[in-house]
């Protein structure tokens, strides 16, 4: 199954993965500048039924959030994830390696929309993979690290370990 959404003249082509029960559009370069990211909608985790109008509005929200705010969201996420990373690998990695860890933004997972006094607020996660900036080949696990957002407010981080 395939679904196309046109937002501000840009076409987002979603494909459905029936094994995962997940819709996604891959390698988008126009959601967060300088990042090639996927947008995923896991129907197993969606709080409400899938509403494509809601998804359109969410994409418009991401697109229309100004560059500085989006950049700050990525930076805030990395700082919080780095804290989590240091805790998770407290005993198994040296301080030097932990200080060299950076996170590569890989995707957005859409979660939910709730009506508030200021309008619709979107819940989503920015998805990252860590890497050692001084040794890209280092194996530091093959699972995603999540930064949870409500609108532009970061409210939690976790990883899939």
């Amino acid at each position: 199954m395939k679904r196309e959404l046109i937002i501000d003249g840009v076409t987002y082509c979603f494909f459905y993965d029936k094994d995962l029960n997940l819709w996604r559009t891959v390698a988008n370069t126009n959601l967060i500048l300088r990042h090639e990211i996927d947008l995923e909608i896991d129907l197993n985790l969606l709080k409400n039924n899938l509403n494509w109008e809601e998804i359109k509005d969410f994409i418009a929200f991401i697109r229309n959030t100004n560059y500085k705010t989006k950049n700050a969201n990525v930076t805030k996420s990395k700082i919080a994830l780095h804290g989590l990373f240091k805790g998770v690998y407290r005993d198994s990695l040296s301080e030097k390696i932990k200080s060299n860890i950076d996170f590569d933004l890989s995707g957005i997972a859409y979660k939910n929309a709730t009506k508030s006094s200021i309008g619709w607020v979107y819940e989503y996660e920015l998805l990252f993979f860590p890497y050692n900036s001084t040794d890209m080949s280092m194996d530091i696990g093959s699972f995603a690290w999540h930064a949870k957002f409500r609108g532009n407010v970061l409210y939690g981080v976790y990883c899939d370990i």
Partner: protein
Amino acid sequence: MKTYPIRKAIFYLFFVLLSILSSAHLPVEGTKTAPNTLEWHISPSDPGCGKAFLKDLNDNPKFAAWFNQLSDQAKYNALRAWKIIKNKVYPNVGHRPWEITRQEIIARDKPSEIKILNAVENAAPPTNSQVAVAGAYSHELGGSVIIRYNNRSFDVNQLEPELKQYVDYLQMIKNDFDTGGNMYKNLYSNVPELKIQNAGAAGFHAEVLATNEVVRRLKAAGKFNGMKDLNKIEVLVKGKSASFGNMCRCPHCFYITDGVKMIGNQ
């Protein structure tokens, strides 16, 4: 003087047999004697094996408790897993840049590898939860390359017996680590803490699932007759993130797919 070497050989043989029998019947915690299956596996050429196994049991009470509650058949499997995994050194390598592996495959120009490379590169990229895609192929089967992704909800009981045989043992070591134990230090060779910490549950990674499907098809075609035939299978793994590239295997996958020809990385 001429009979001396024969006497010496008989004398040596006597001690070897004595060593085997004594090590096979050392008491195991919770049982009166070691299981009969233990005797089967202690090779006359390696009489120290039984003692080493019993030492590991005695040094790791959780291992002994786990082992002792197994059925005889499961003990047999666990003992075999112990021997293989204890003695086969984990390479503990990192990921390889995809472009390097890609160029090497192209330079070798081996049809099966080119076929797998094309299939992996043209497959749908993994999702952020899948992370990795693997292509597996056997020239004895022909046909298309089998593509699989990491799948955390995969039921490992669906693995073919040849791939399933070490899973319980590997998972036992992982469970021990996750609950603060360090059994991995004794039971593995060259597996650092970071690798066991990140290994995840045993048996759901892409390379295992792709290999499993090829094994299943080889069996259906009557072309798989045991572990040695795992070398009829070639596997290539690609990660989602640029830093993953041609991914290395975690300790679990390394032992589960031991014998498979891994392309590029180990």
